[in-house]
């Protein structure tokens, strides 16, 4: 009798243990649905993540405090030191060095991680990915590494990574949807929030970024059509000059134009479709914009380059140049899609268009606060980030 009681107790204990183990085991996994609508089952504690993007995913992971889980990256923009130099008409030589992706500045150790992509971009090494042995691969389609242009290549990339047995979380950047208003980035952040069990924090980040749009729109939406500034986004890619052009411009169907027209309520001086369209001097004179914005275009282009550089001396009669209304965008290498720092881009455009409406906003101060809020860094690091983004001109000009 006693023996059978012991047996019953033993069986009950084993059963209890099995049930508890099963329950705990079930809790140790969770499911996340990515932007394809595909559910991915993951271990609760993720420690090894490979990212394939240009820095957006890392930026959100930095905000969420989980960047240390990255074991492989997919873009050399987080490894490279960029340098750009030019000579003015009077022979002064200017060199801009240590232009860094914000993620490279914040996390120098990313430089030591294997990069799944080739330095020139576009060739993924699946074997390097396998070597890093990630628990999860996060692929942002539409960034430079896996662009949205070649959809067959996107499908092959996705199917190969899945065939390797690595769970794959796919994010679609705004360029996948050809979505100029950037709303799909909110969903990207929400997916990453769910992934790291911090959905509220991720949504708060999206709302924080969105608040800049609201601020700009609030101040500019009442501007009548006749008083709208005419902006020209002018890329000064040196290669263009070897082809007989002077600069490249962004048409009304681009995200850049959406920022100019729908957020800053200014006017894109170039009224055609297309991006990176090459114009010669006469065509730029015909547009005669009020303001010129210089984006990253195969190099960093400070206002001084177009104001004083010999290659642009024939543009000196342009109104924007005579009035010295030229601004440079932050350094954004390999930024095929939008990045977390987009509010700064928008504020620079808005303030360049309507300096009087944004006289209380100093970009150099906003940038510091932005870096502190988004990346939780101290003042010195924020200043370092601002320099790495080649935004020190905003300090020099109290912009």
């Amino acid at each position, binding site marked *: 009798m006693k023996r059978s009681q012991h047996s019953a107790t033993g069986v009950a204990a084993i059963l209890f243990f099995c049930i508890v183990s099963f329950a705990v085991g079930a809790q140790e996994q969770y499911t996340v649905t990515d932007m394809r609508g595909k559910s991915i089952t993951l271990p609760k504690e993720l420690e090894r993540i490979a990212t394939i993007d240009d820095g957006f995913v890392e930026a959100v992971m930095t905000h969420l405090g989980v960047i240390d889980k990255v074991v492989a990256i997919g873009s050399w923009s987080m490894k490279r030191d960029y340098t750009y130099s030019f000579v003015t008409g009077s022979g002064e030589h200017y060199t801009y060095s240590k232009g860094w992706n914000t993620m490279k500045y914040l996390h120098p150790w990313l430089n030591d991680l294997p990069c799944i*992509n080739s330095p*020139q971009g576009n*060739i993924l*090494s*699946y074997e390097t990915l396998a070597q890093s042995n990630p628990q999860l691969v996060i692929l942002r389609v539409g960034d430079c590494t896996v662009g949205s242009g070649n959809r067959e290549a996107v499908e092959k990339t996705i199917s*190969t990574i899945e065939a*390797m047995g690595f769970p794959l979380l796919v994010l679609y950047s705004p360029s996948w949807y050809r979505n100029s208003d950037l709303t799909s980035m909110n969903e990207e952040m929400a997916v990453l929030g769910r992934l790291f069990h911090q959905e509220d924090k991720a949504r708060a980040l999206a709302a924080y970024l969105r608040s800049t749009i609201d601020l700009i729109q609030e101040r500019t939406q009442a501007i009548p059509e006749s008083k709208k500034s005419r902006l020209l986004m002018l890329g000064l890619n040196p290669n263009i000059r070897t082809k007989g052009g002077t600069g490249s411009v962004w048409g009304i169907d681009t995200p850049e134009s959406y920022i100019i027209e729908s957020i800053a309520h200014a006017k894109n001086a170039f009224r055609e479709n297309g991006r*990176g369209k090459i114009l010669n001097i006469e065509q730029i004179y015909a547009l005669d914009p009020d303001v010129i914005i210089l984006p990253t275009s*195969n190099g960093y282009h400070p206002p001084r380059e177009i104001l004083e550089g010999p290659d642009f001396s024939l543009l000196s009669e342009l109104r924007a140049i005579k009035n010295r209304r030229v601004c440079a965008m932050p350094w954004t290498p390999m930024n095929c899609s939008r990045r977390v720092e987009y509010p700064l881009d928008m504020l620079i455009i808005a303030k360049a268009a309507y300096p009087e409406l944004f006289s209380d906003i100093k970009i150099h101060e906003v940038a510091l606060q932005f870096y502190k809020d988004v990346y939780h860094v101290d003042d010195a690091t924020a200043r370092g980030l601002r320099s790495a983004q080649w935004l020190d001109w905003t300090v020099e000009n109290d912009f």
Partner: protein
Amino acid sequence: MTSKSKSSAQKLTMIVVLLLILVVGTLWALTAGTYDISAEETYHILRTKLMGGSEEELSKLHTVIIWTIRTPRVLLAIITGVAFALSGAAYQACFRNPLVEPYILGVSAGAAFGAALGIMFPTIIRSMQLSAFGFAILAVALSYAISKTRGRAPVITLVISGVVIGSLFSAMVSLLKYLAPDAQLREITFWMMGGFYYATWKDVILTAPFVAVVFAIIFLTSWKLNILSMGDEEARTLGVHPERYRLLYILSTTLVTALCVSQVGIVAWVGLMAPHAARMIFGADNSYVVPAGALLGALFILLCDTMARTIASSEIPIGILTSVVGAPFLIYLLRSKGKTLYG
């Protein structure tokens, strides 16, 4: 045994040796890669996949790397090498010109234009490969149609029209590159440098039968290539219709070249170099040049592609390596055997 038959036996032996080198090279390529997988495990995975057996004991990751990533890539490289070398040999005989290559009628320029269109307008053109293939065929069809006068397409006008159509498509590619934003420009440029990094089993299964059939056609009628290379009048005298056979060779080799180019981009040098290398080693007889050229083309691309994916931590576009490796090899052959063959 006559000296001629002895020489034929030697050539046959050399072809068999080349085939063995290709087999060994293929096995070596399958074991080479950034991710370290032992030769034994590679063999085990291949044997299980080919001969059957329990896949449960295989590492899934290793199986994917060997079977899904490396094997189709290696096979597509071999198939492409065979296709380009075949085309080169056929073109050189048909045009009676040692300088022509499969791209002479505008295949590469047409394919590049189709690919660039696909990259620039992905929502309109859903398949970049199909677009590249379609425009490659269109370019050659245009070259042929333009050169045709009074029902005939004389060689010289065919070459000239090929150069013209090729230039036209190249100009249109330049225009698209000029207009393309940075990301798409990078993609077009990469496609034009060629590479096997997107190779899949689907590509292998699609390409292999066509290349096999064209190889069979050209190899079995290689004696007619010999006659064609003597000139049209001589061919007619010997009962070979030069126009008809030229059309057959050009059409069939263009088809496989376009098919391969649409999948792997433009890989330079192979179509020009492999038949010459074969000719310098085996003599001018196309019965040997065709199989030997095909083997040398396959070996050459296999070597370059394996180097492309293993010598650096990141991949090097194969177009760069085919030029860097191919040029010195051809210079060596020209210096050592060129005088004997070309006088």
